[in-house]
């Protein structure tokens, strides 16, 4: 089935850097020792350029483990998105190091569950909730969101005793754009058939962005690129030329939800693109430089994220069109976390779009962080792949 990676040198050779959680932990600890405040985040709508420009370190808070869910369910309903339950459980059990290290926390009104869960943790840390407009095509939407971003700045200035300069923000905008362009060089390899990297490596490279900056990040990407070039030269690849290529869309997939990616791999498929926030979506964003109003530019870029919390979320269809054209998947798998109504209802549109416009099969997998449904998911993924086989 799969070409194992045994004998193929890892993409990131430095063992310390190669362990994503360890390197992130070390990075945050170092920054904290240097006196940088830490700002905990749950979502891609938090404007990281603003946080960085104020001398703070944005960190994604823990949210992807089944382990903390039973404790969360003592207060939260069981019929709720596992990501929200897990996030809350991490806080209740005091086991998210990043939360403990956070000097402030940012939440957004992205979905019913998160919005109301935040109320239950808002008293534990200085917490700022951003009122996210939901109609991305409305004329006033950018003004409204800019206002929320401005208020976030005020909150951070007060809470962290720092200030924001337009120049610093402009510099962080350039930095993000530079990183996103570099990341795109890596993404270009995912369009190869056969694909030279595994989904785990895609994740590893994506998470590097959180711990490396500027020249250091460029250096890492260049090393990774030459490693991949070498694999290609040697004919080393992941899967085979005929392995079904899968674009994974939908809810964020991380931690225990990675079982879906693992099952795709075990069933003989290769993951060639991950559209979700946990994957590539945010790196396709380009922030307008030298606009004269960097705060507005940052607001505009976050607002362009095609999350299902937006209505209508046409940008997600546009993004899928581009990703399908670029990465040539044979099928789309839409991962919906249990009880995530927005992605779940939107899935109907996604399937219709993918089938009608691209003639590709689309499989919706509704799952949580438990292991109970692994074999059921496997059966469905295998059936999808068998169907692809028949069509050839």
């Amino acid at each position: 089935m799969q070409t194992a990676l045994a004998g193929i040198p890892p993409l990131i050779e430095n063992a310390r850097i190669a362990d994503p959680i360890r390197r992130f932990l070390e990075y945050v600890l170092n920054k904290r020792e240097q006196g940088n405040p830490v700002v905990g985040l749950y979502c891609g709508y938090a404007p990281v350029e603003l946080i960085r420009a104020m001398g703070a370190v944005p960190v994604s808070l823990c949210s992807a483990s089944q382990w903390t869910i039973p404790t969360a369910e003592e207060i939260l309903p069981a019929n709720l998105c596992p990501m929200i339950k897990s996030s809350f459980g991490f806080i209740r059990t005091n086991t998210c190091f990043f939360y403990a290290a956070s000097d402030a926390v940012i939440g957004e009104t992205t979905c019913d569950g998160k919005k109301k869960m935040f109320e239950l943790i808002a008293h534990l840390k200085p917490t700022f909730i951003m009122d996210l407009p939901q109609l991305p095509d409305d004329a006033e939407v950018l003004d409204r969101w800019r206002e929320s971003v401005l208020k976030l700045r005020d909150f951070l200035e007060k809470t962290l005793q720092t200030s924001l300069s337009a120049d610093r923000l402009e510099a962080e905008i350039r930095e993000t754009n530079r990183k996103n362009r570099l990341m795109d060089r890596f993404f270009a390899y995912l369009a190869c058939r056969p694909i030279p990297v595994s989904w785990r490596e895609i994740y590893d490279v994506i998470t590097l962005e959180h711990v490396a900056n500027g020249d250091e990040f460029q250096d890492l990407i260049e090393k990774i690129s030459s490693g991949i070039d070498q694999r290609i030269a040697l004919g080393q690849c992941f899967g085979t030329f005929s392995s079904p290529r899968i674009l994974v869309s939908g809810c964020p997939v991380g931690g225990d939800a990675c079982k879906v990616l693992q099952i795709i791999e075990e069933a003989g498929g290769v993951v060639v693109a991950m559209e979700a926030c946990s994957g590539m979506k945010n790196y396709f964003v380009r922030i307008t430089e030298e606009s004269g109003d960097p705060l507005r530019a940052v607001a505009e870029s976050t607002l362009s994220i095609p999350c299902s919390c937006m209505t209508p979320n046409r940008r997600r269809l546009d993004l899928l069109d581009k990703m399908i054209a670029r990465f040539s998947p044979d099928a789309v798998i839409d991962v919906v976390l249990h009880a995530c109504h927005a992605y779940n209802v939107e899935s109907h549109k996604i399937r219709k779009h993918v089938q009608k416009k691209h003639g590709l099969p689309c499989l919706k997998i509704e799952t949580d962080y438990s292991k109970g449904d692994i074999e059921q998911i496997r059966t469905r993924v295998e059936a999808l792949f068998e169907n692809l086989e028949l069509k050839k």
Partner: protein
Amino acid sequence: MMFNVPDVKPLINDEFAGEPSKRTLQYISNKRASGMPVVGLYCGYAPLEVIRAVGAVPAILCSFADKPIPAAEEVLPANLCPLIKSSYGYIITDSCPFFGLSDAVVAETTCDGKKKMFELISSYRPMFVMDLPQLPDEAEARSNWATMISKLKGFLENTFGTSGTSEGIEAEIQATNIKNRLIRRVYEYAEKKPPLLSWQELYELSYLAQVATTEHLLPIFKEIFETIEERENKGIYYGSPSSPRVLVTGCPVGGDSTKVYRIIEEAGGVVVAMDACSGMKPFLSDIEEKTGDPIGAVAQHYLEIPCSCMTPNTRRLTELDKVIDRFQPDAIVEVVLHACHSYNIEAYKIMTHVKEEYNLPYLKIVTDYSEGDVEQIRTRVEALLESI
């Protein structure tokens, strides 16, 4: 549960007693026949005064029956709020007469499920989705919502070729206040121990009053007060003096989910207050008059609706305090519609609040429109009422 004497004259004494939707259907059909456009609504955040000021008649769209849900589930997830599934099912099976009469539909971004369901019906009728601010206490919330209401007005004017004036909205504000004060006077008779009216009567009145104009309601109110005063004079009351008084809070309850009210009664309780949107919530406060900025006043009023979609929804606790003080319940039943995350999570705060502040027994019931859980709910309600 019943009145202490037989053959009590119904509160709204017409041929539609017990059938509130037929009553409003006739009302709306008549209005439409007279040339008025009809605006379909799903939620209490739709500003009725603006809709009326542009010359339209509001219609509450069907959302309370189990019947169209299987059809809806062909497209929507099963694990979704029954109100949303039912609404959608009614439309795709073409069985909501109010939607059939509607010339436009107003929707709001109140919750994930509705917001995304609206996308699937937006092609059926001219539809306007209002982006509802979710942090009601922020300084900009009011102006953002006022802007949204102005845009709604523009949409309705364009769609119907009519126009609404500030004076017109101001007049509607005043009319709403008259109506709300009259309804609150009716509620005073539910405060009495024992109450003088049944939950069905309160429910029917809410149903009609959200749609009908004050002008239309004035003679009805006159008769209502005569009826209630007659009950008072004759010593007629509902339930018995020892019936536990129950306040029902949470999600809207109507149609097939009124099973919860029925079960409370069958278990010996009497429902004295219903604080949801389907009950008293729309009528509990007034809109500020003569501000010179009627749209701003309307925006302020609607933004103060204590729905769980707001964060934090502190007003729900303060409003609940008032309702508890007025209606003196012996127990609180919270109804959460299946998969309604915001009411479900907020229920934890409500439970803590009513226990700590009032030491009142509290029961959360998560339910849908099916009959499957009736006996289970009954067991739990009976246990609650026994504990009083």
